């Protein structure tokens, strides 16, 4: 079992006005090669920062701590970051908003050319050949090559971006909220496409999302993130059917599902804003199951092989 991503107490923060705001407050996570991990969380929980850390696109004013290893490369070690030979070669990024991620002045074919040229020494013919091979895999016709981004629909733009990421032949694909700008009725299509491609090309896929419902269909593992820490992580079936953290359970109960008309139970309060952290369990304010012990940060409880939860009550699980 080869480990594609290893995180040891990874912390990532931003320096804003001489103060440090920690977006990721200490994450221990391990991802096997060839699997799909969905990191699920709401706005401000740090999941995009985590995605950026894996891909290698942290801004210069970011601060890090802990360790991040991609295959054999140590990319983050304490405050030092070294992404030489990682970006575009080992990791590829599928950004959130396809409309703003494609250069409006370039045709799809030119996009392929520039992306491949920066990673390998390729010429126009080679990039066109690669494009023709990959486009059918994302259900796009090769006629799309001559089009400009604004001539394509949102879903097609997103598929072009996925194709570009595949073209780099990177092992680790990081998709940051791939469906948030897509209409609800098309989301499942895109997600299923990603899942299919992941299995066909045997990539390691990381999907960052707040959409628990559709993304959970393709992942092998789910990680629930809240306020900069992973609250629960485990195999998909286990986490969805047997949630061992109150936040997971409440998320499941508050997500509307088409065709199921259960009463939605809202989670009181709001997701915490970026950066604030404290000694107690970060979910304390909103948790209906809190007790005295929750005033100190929970240790990771092992539920089962590869199913972990960061809650003192994970083993008894009063919410089940």
């Amino acid at each position, binding site marked *: 079992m080869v480990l594609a991503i290893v995180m040891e107490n990874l912390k990532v923060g931003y320096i804003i006005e001489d103060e440090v705001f920690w977006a990721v407050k200490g994450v221990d996570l391990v991802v096997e090669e060839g699997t799909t991990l969905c990191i699920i969380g*709401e706005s401000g929980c740090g999941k995009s920062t985590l995605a950026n850390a894996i891909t290698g696109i942290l801004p210069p004013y970011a601060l890090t701590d802990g360790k991040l290893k991609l295959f054999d490369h140590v990319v983050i070690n304490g405050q030092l970051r070294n992404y030489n030979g990682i970006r575009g070669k080992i990791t590829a990024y599928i950004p959130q908003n396809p409309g703003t991620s494609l250069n409006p002045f370039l045709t799809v074919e030119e996009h392929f050319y520039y992306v491949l040229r920066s990673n390998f020494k390729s010429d126009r013919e080679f990039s066109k050949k690669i494009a023709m091979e990959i486009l059918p895999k994302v259900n796009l016709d090769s006629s799309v090559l001559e089009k400009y981004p604004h001539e394509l629909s949102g879903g097609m733009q997103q598929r072009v971006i996925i194709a570009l990421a595949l073209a780099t032949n990177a092992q680790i694909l990081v998709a940051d909220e791939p469906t948030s700008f897509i209409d609800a009725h098309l989301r499942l299509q895109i997600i299923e496409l990603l899942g299919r491609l992941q299995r066909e090309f045997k990539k390691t896929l990381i999907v960052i999302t707040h959409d628990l419902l559709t993304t959970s269909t393709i992942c092998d593992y789910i990680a629930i993130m809240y306020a900069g820490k992973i609250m629960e992580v485990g195999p998909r079936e286990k986490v969805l059917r047997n949630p061992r953290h109150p936040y997971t359970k409440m998320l499941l109960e508050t997500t509307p599902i*088409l*065709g*199921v008309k259960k009463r939605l139970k*809202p989670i009181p309060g*709001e997701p915490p804003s970026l950066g604030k952290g404290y000694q107690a369990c970060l979910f304390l304010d909103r948790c209906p199951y809190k007790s005295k012990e929750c005033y100190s940060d929970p240790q990771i409880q092992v539920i089962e092989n590869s199913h972990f939860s960061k809650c003192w009550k994970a083993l008894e699980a009063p919410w089940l």
Partner: protein
Amino acid sequence: MVMKNPEYIIKLENVTAGYLITPPGIRSLIKTRYIVLKNINLSVNKSERIAIVGSSGSGKTTLLKVILGLLKPFSGRVFIYEYDIYRLPWRERVKILKKIGYVPQDPFKSLNPMLRVKDILREPLEAHVIRGYKESKIKSKVKSIVKLVGLPEKVLEMYPEELSGGMRQRVLIARALVSEPEVLILDEPTSALDVSVQAQIINLINDIYEQFKPAILLVTHDLSIAQYIADRIIVIENKEIVEEGLIDNVLNNPQSHFMKMAVSSYKDNKNKLKLEF
């Protein structure tokens, strides 16, 4: 000024609407019509809850603008009660539009950052019926509406930037309710919000319906939200209304391409739910 009450509150008769655009690079000064909606026939009755669905860019926003009196259609008529609103001058039209409460889409851009919440909320009351409304009446109305939407009173003194997304959405809903409308129009009320806050807003809308029974017109591309709030659903595709009916009927027996695709994304061929926890 009580008029004969027709059955409907809002009615669109054969409306075709769109925008005038100047085609690029053409020498002539003639603007062409860009049609976004064709032959729309729609009526909203008292206490009815309707969801208008369609993919992004299908014309839902344009439809709202036509209903709100902001965009004159190329042809067809728009009635609010028995008034053909586009026959009226703006001053008169606005008096009738009071009966509609509009909750815009993006809570982060729909509030004036320079105004406190209390000033935002009292605006609909200030502009009209000036002689009738005394200052104390306005203040008490604002206070009660804030409580109605589940916000603490201290929010009145705050500026929008101090509020979270969910709170801002509540302020927008409160503003729409303050003039006691007969119709509440909501444009994608939850798409900018986190899922944990979404349920709060959905429950709030349903509670308001229980209490005041306004007609509700909900515009969304997310059917799972529509099912919680609406009884009837209207599907807009390719500039026209392609399907209409009670929500359960439409979901079980989709006719239009949009609905078929939406339904297929949550139910597979054996009619079993694909997505479930």
